[in-house]
């Protein structure tokens, strides 16, 4: 199985390590040609405004949007969740997202770095809590009717899916626990 990791900016190398630990082959994705032959794609955390800009300048936005429409399995964490969301609040006016999952997210909704935190979250499909790290995290403010919420923290969804699109407002790549990457790869 070949999993692409969007490598325009952000924590892509940590995702590659986590995916490799699950037995997947990975490829860094920076230009349209890198999409060929991918079975799935991970969009990492990082700065969503930077990634949005680089998606346009690299010519990657439209071909990637088409692959996502064609049912490519995608997992977006933090900034990656912002890129996949239908609606983005507190973004830049020129910021683009793929409208791949029917949620509204607020950039830096949990605050600045001083408010970044770690906490155990209950993921019902796993048999014990998952330790989650939230960094200047986006906050989900609305979910559409077709969304399956996989985990909440303090009553707010932090892990969700719609079909083959998965999103997390935290960073499963920053902890040595591979269960969420495995969960995603099982769906692929």
């Amino acid at each position, binding site marked *: 199985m070949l999993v692409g990791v969007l490598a325009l900016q952000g*924590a892509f*190398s940590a995702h590659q390590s986590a995916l490799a630990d699950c037995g997947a082959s990975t490829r860094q994705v920076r230009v349209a040609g890198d999409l060929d032959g991918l079975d799935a794609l991970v969009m990492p955390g990082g700065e969503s405004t*930077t990634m949005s800009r680089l998606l346009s300048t690299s010519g990657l936005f439209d071909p990637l949007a088409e692959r996502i429409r064609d049912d490519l399995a995608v997992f977006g964490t933090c900034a990656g969740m912002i890129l996949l969301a239908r609606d983005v609040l507190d973004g830049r006016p020129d910021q683009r997202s793929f409208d791949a999952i029917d949620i509204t997210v607020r950039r830096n909704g949990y605050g600045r770095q001083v*408010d970044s935190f770690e906490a155990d979250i209950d993921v019902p499909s796993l048999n014990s809590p998952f330790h989650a790290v939230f960094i200047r995290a986006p906050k989900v403010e609305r979910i559409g009717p077709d969304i399956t919420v996989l985990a909440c923290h303090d009553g707010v969804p932090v892990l969700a899916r719609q079909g083959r699109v998965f999103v997390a407002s935290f960073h499963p790549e920053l902890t040595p626990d591979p269960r969420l990457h495995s969960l995603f790869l099982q769906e692929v």
Partner: protein
Amino acid sequence: MSFDESSTTRATGTYPVKRGLAEMLKGGVIMDVVNSEQAKIAEDAGACAVMALERVPADIRRDGGVARMSDPDMIDAIKAAVSIPVMAKVRIGHFVEAQILEALGVDFIDESEVLTPADEAHHIDKYKFSVPFVCGATNLGEALRRISEGACMIRSKGEAGTGNIVEAVRHLRSIIGDIRKITQADSAELFEWAKHLQAPLPLVQEIAETGWLPVPMFCAGGIATPADAALAMQLGAEAVFVGSGIFKSDDPTPRAKAIVEATTHFSDPHILAKVSRSLGAPMTGIGMDEINQRYAERGW
């Protein structure tokens, strides 16, 4: 719709949370800015963070005098102007400046040799802070001493304010060359490495095992062109800081955008050629034999 929010335990300011932000900045460009207009230009160009300071290093070098932490009003104005992370610098060892920046809610503190050192023997105990720190290093021993004090990110120092990449290359090659040698060392040789580097043995053993520093390593000091940024990345830096190189050039906006693209596409010469066109003149820069104060020598 809104969610019914409850409140449970959450831990802020922990080492994983601090190191996590360093991880998020990888592959990006952190730009020095001296006011909110420059901060907006940086954000527009795709910077992953800005460094708020009173004067860029080239001006500090020109003006002389004591360089200190920035005015809180200026930092607040920059925080209000952009939505990307805001970093700011403190003098080496000046933990009260760091306390003030933490109270202001900056996202990252740079304990920087570009400012005039406040302590000639001690760096800040960075474990005491909930805000993450980055520190400069010229070699692996210096990098590991800073990590042992709690730094969550290392940047090669280079020679700030010169527009000359030669020192950054020297420091990157030194740090990465020694990492490579340590991965080839046997367990007995690691004791000698720790002594030679004047660094804690457990950190040396961790490098032997993982083949890399325990925190991200970025490049700073002397980056003036897209090619300079790509050179740092190809040598093994994981992101770049650009100080005087953007706002001391003829036309900052296209240069800032080009350096962002070059940092992402650092191994693609065709993209590098494309983004290097029509940028106007870079900052003039100075040779190492023309300067009388090497900032990189500050820090211990």
